[in-house]
């Protein structure tokens, strides 16, 4: 009888302790963040939202016969599209703290320590057929920059989409001799491309212009076999006739 009372008391204790544990666990779960959605889920939600708006939202037909979202449907999908893009990029790209080398490379190339740069996204490198990436930035002067994250190396710089709303026309009084432009291009490439001075004699040089307004100085590397969809690696400096830098590319390996 005494033992039964002890057992009963012990049992009650276990029940109370168990209930407390459950309560604590339930409370903790109530405050836990939900598991993050997978990329597949994020894409699925965006796709579902678009289909819903196509079924019941504002849709119009454009001049070329295509359907286009409009009004509140467009605003809603545009916002969701941007949010989903940012979420996916945050998961598939380097952490912002790991991209400091990109910023240094761009600022060094431009010689502007305080150049404000905005990161846009990480994408596949269109010059490579091996899955390698580029990190894309824009500055406040209308330029876009691509940086190879494996080496924090500038791959391309030039006017970004939407910039240059006025043409850069150079009058006769501001034109530089081609020799001066060539010297500037070589100097710029020397400073921006590691080992360029030593490699230049083995590269194939090319000079050209468009309407004598913009001059291109290019050095192609035809020495290595390539995948058939790739361009031969090259360095290229584009200068307007007054010496202003228009674009720069370095895809040497």
């Amino acid at each position: 009888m005494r033992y039964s009372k002890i057992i009963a008391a012990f049992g009650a204790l276990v029940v109370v302790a168990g209930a407390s544990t459950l309560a604590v666990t339930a409370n903790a779960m109530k405050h836990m963040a939900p598991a993050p959605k997978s990329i597949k889920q994020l894409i699925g939600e965006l796709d579902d939202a678009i289909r819903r708006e196509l079924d019941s939202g504002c849709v119009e037909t454009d001049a070329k016969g295509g359907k286009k979202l409009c009004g509140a449907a467009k605003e809603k999908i545009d916002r969701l599209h941007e949010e989903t893009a940012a979420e996916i990029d945050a998961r598939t790209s380097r952490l912002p703290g790991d991209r400091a080398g990109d910023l240094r490379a761009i600022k060094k190339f431009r010689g502007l320590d305080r150049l404000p740069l905005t990161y846009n996204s990480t994408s596949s490198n269109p010059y490579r057929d091996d899955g390698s990436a580029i990190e894309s930035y824009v500055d406040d002067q209308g330029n876009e920059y691509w940086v190879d994250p494996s080496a924090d190396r500038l791959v391309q710089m030039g006017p970004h989409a939407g910039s240059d709303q006025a043409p850069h026309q150079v009058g006769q009084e501001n034109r530089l001799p081609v020799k001066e432009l060539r010297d500037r291009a070589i100097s710029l490439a020397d400073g921006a491309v590691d080992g360029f001075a030593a490699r230049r004699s083995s590269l194939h040089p090319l000079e050209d212009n468009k309407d004598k307004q913009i001059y291109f100085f290019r050095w192609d590397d035809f020495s290595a076999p390539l995948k058939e969809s790739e361009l031969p690696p090259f360095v290229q400096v584009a200068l307007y006739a007054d010496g202003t830098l228009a674009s720069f590319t370095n895809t040497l390996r």
Partner: protein
Amino acid sequence: MRTKMMFISGLLSLVVSAALAAPTQAVTVLANGGSYFRASGPIQYWHFDAGEGYCGHLASWCSPSHMQWTYSMDPLHSSNWAMWTVPTPEMYYSAVYAFIPRRDATALAFYSTGYGYASERQTTVNQNAYYDQWVGLNSGQKLYRVGTVVLDDNNQWFGKSGVYRVAFDEIKIEN
């Protein structure tokens, strides 16, 4: 591990398995020719440069071996345009690149990218600043389910001093 499929009619589909959290990487190149390309407008306004452009003198796997161009027009009198259509749009975000050829690419070109079934991103690209190279159409912004790219002869520089030519060549879509 890589699988590559090629069609000399002007389409390259490249599928690369990569150790990314993202879905399988895919690359599509659409040429200015073949069944995925439609050029519209008076034929006399289209000009063709043989042996120029990406397929014209840099890539041997694809065709056609020319790029085409037209003079840019007052936006109110735009007449010629072309559309590249992705045969099977990727259900993912992609970057869109245009190949800017070295010849007859001197305008501020007006591109529209169709994405997400029924959305459109319009932008301009200074073709004059580039020479036989790839250029991003959306400043690094990737778009979901890219389906079409349209380029027309509408040019914001029209009326400024100079003669401007809009070049139509390959389009590349990568995720």
